[in-house]
Structure formats: structure tokens, C-alpha cells
């Protein structure tokens, strides 16, 4: 017995509209590949490269609770802003973010990261200094590597002290594409 796409869509829409979902997600197409975008009632909770249905559902449940449901509706705002960003029409994101379950140091670093302007780059050391932990460049690197909301929280704008690109959790090619899009390279 197969469920008609229409019946399936109506259930997912109703669930999201009634606010019964802890965290809703959908796959969003982008110039740097498919993104699994998830949002709760607090805002965007994650953007992951290369969606992996098996692991991603559990990871989403760990962020916000077991009521994880694919529902395009819940990520409409995020999708719109991402589309605009990739078209070069948006330089800053306005959607709210859900940073729950992250440790205070991580949140402090991500707060500073969010202030790095479009088209500019900074270094791990500079970010560490700005959160008052000048010797914590390596820890800042770890926060970048685990950033669960890349693109919106622009860890692609953080590079090594000598101007080298350093790393990117989504792969260096994506980092280069994003920096080129922003005219930073």
C-alpha cells in the first residue's frame, strides 16, 4: 500500500501548522550541493552538507526532541534567505537561530562569528581574541569545524593566520565557492 504524495504532504503540512513538530527539516538545493536544513519554533537549528538520512534524523532528535519530521513548510524562511544569498541578493541573514544545547564558549564564539561581515575574512586567532580567550585559536577552530549552521554562521570567512584557507567541514572547495561568491577572493 503506497501513500499518495498528496496525502503525505497534507499530513506533514498539518503537523507543522499545528506546532506539533520539535524540529522540521527539508532538503534544499544549492550551488554547493544539497543541504539538509532544519528549524524549530526558535529558528534555524542546523544546515548540513551531503544529507545522510540514517544519521541526520538521530542528530536532529538530539538537538530538539524526538518529534522530527520532514516538512518543507518549516524551513520556508531559511530556504528563501539561502536562495537570495546564493543569487548574490542577500548579504546578511535575518532568520532567527536555535543554538540550544551548545556550550557557552561555543555560543560566544558563534556570536562573534556572526559579526564578521560579508565579503571579509578573519582568522581563528582574531576570533579567539574577540571572545577574550586570545590563546584559544585552536578551540575556535574546533567550534568552526562543528558549526552546525554553516553559511548562515559564516565559518567560511575564517582563515589561517598566514592567509591560507585552513579547513572547512564541508570541504575546501565549498569554502572557496562561498568566498568567491562574496567577492572575498
Amino acid at each position, binding site marked *: 500500500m*503506497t501513500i499518495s504524495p498528496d*496525502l503525505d504532504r497534507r*499530513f506533514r503540512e*498539518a503537523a507543522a501548522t499545528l506546532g*506539533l513538530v520539535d524540529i522540521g527539516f527539508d532538503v534544499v538545493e544549492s550551488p554547493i550541493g544539497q543541504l539538509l536544513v532544519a528549524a524549530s519554533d526558535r529558528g534555524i537549528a542546523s544546515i548540513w552538507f551531503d544529507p545522510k538520512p540514517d544519521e541526520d*534524523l538521530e542528530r536532529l532528535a538530539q538537538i530538539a526532541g524526538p*518529534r*522530527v519530521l520532514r516538512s518543507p513548510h518549516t524551513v520556508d524562511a531559511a530556504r528563501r534567505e539561502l536562495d537570495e544569498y546564493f543569487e548574490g541578493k542577500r548579504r546578511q541573514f535575518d532568520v532567527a537561530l536555535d543554538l540550544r544545547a551548545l556550550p557557552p564558549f561555543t555560543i560566544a564564539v558563534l556570536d562573534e562569528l556572526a559579526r564578521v561581515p560579508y565579503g571579509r575574512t578573519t582568522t581563528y586567532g582574531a576570533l579567539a581574541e574577540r571572545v577574550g580567550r586570545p590563546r584559544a585559536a585552536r578551540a575556535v577552530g574546533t567550534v568552526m569545524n562543528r558549526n552546525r549552521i554553516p553559511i548562515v554562521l559564516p565559518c567560511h570567512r575564517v582563515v589561517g593566520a598566514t592567509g591560507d584557507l585552513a579547513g572547512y567541514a564541508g570541504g575546501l572547495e565549498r569554502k572557496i565557492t562561498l568566498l568567491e561568491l562574496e567577492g572575498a577572493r
Partner: protein
Amino acid sequence: MMATVTIPPFERFYEEHRAGVLRLLRRRLGAERAEDAFQETFLRALRAYGRLEHGEHLRAWVLTIAQNVALDVLRRTRATDELIDAAAHDQSPAYAELAELTAGLGARERAAVVLRYGYDLSYEQIAAALDSTPDAARQAASTGVRRIRRRITS
């Protein structure tokens, strides 16, 4: 941090059971009425999902919700003849043992007894399945047991 998650993410639960739920509802209600009932079933499940204490018997749980949604639909359309048949299509051994014993009970009492003693669900879970309260679920199970006992001993 969140507590360790012991129940599967809802998406996985939904994908696993939606075909079975729709099958049951079509059989009980016909293709057309089954669609609304399908949505209602999974919305009820979603409402109760965050309160589940473990991920066992999820199939029995969601099929019971579906049965109850079907009962509500039939009740609304006054097809009272079909009322008594709750959960009767489940092939589980636990249920099979109780099937005969509970045959004479009303739908709600029967569902409560089977879920409590056949599937070992808590009254809270049973309440969610029956769209009722834990107290009412306890009451229904205990009335059911009393009736069975009376019948066996008479």
C-alpha cells in the same frame, strides 16, 4: 543536553508505519474516508509522541490509535454495527491470548485491557492511544478486568 533518546525520530516511525495504518483504515472505512482518518491518526500519535517512555510496541500503539480514529468516524456516521472490533487485526501473540477473553467487552474496555496486559503499556500511553485521560484508561481497564472475571467465574 537532552536526555538520551530512546524512541526513534518521528520521521522514521511515520515512514515505517504509514502503509500499515492506511491499509487498516481503508479496510475499516473505505478509501475515501481513510484519508482524513490517516491524518488524524498520525496527528494524535504526534501529540502523544514526546511523552512516550520507550520505543517498544510502537506498531501496536499506532494501530490502536488508528482503530480508535476509525471508531470515531464510524460512530459519527452512525455505523454502530461495526463498533466492536478494536485492534482485532493485530496478529501479535500477546493479543491473541487476550482476544478470546476480551471478546465480550466494549471497544474501549477491550483496547484498555489489551494494551495494559497484552502490551504492557502505561496508562499514560493508553490514554494517548484512546485520546483519553490516564484515569479514564485505568478505569476502563479495571472495569474490563472485572467483567472478564465475572464471566469466567459465573
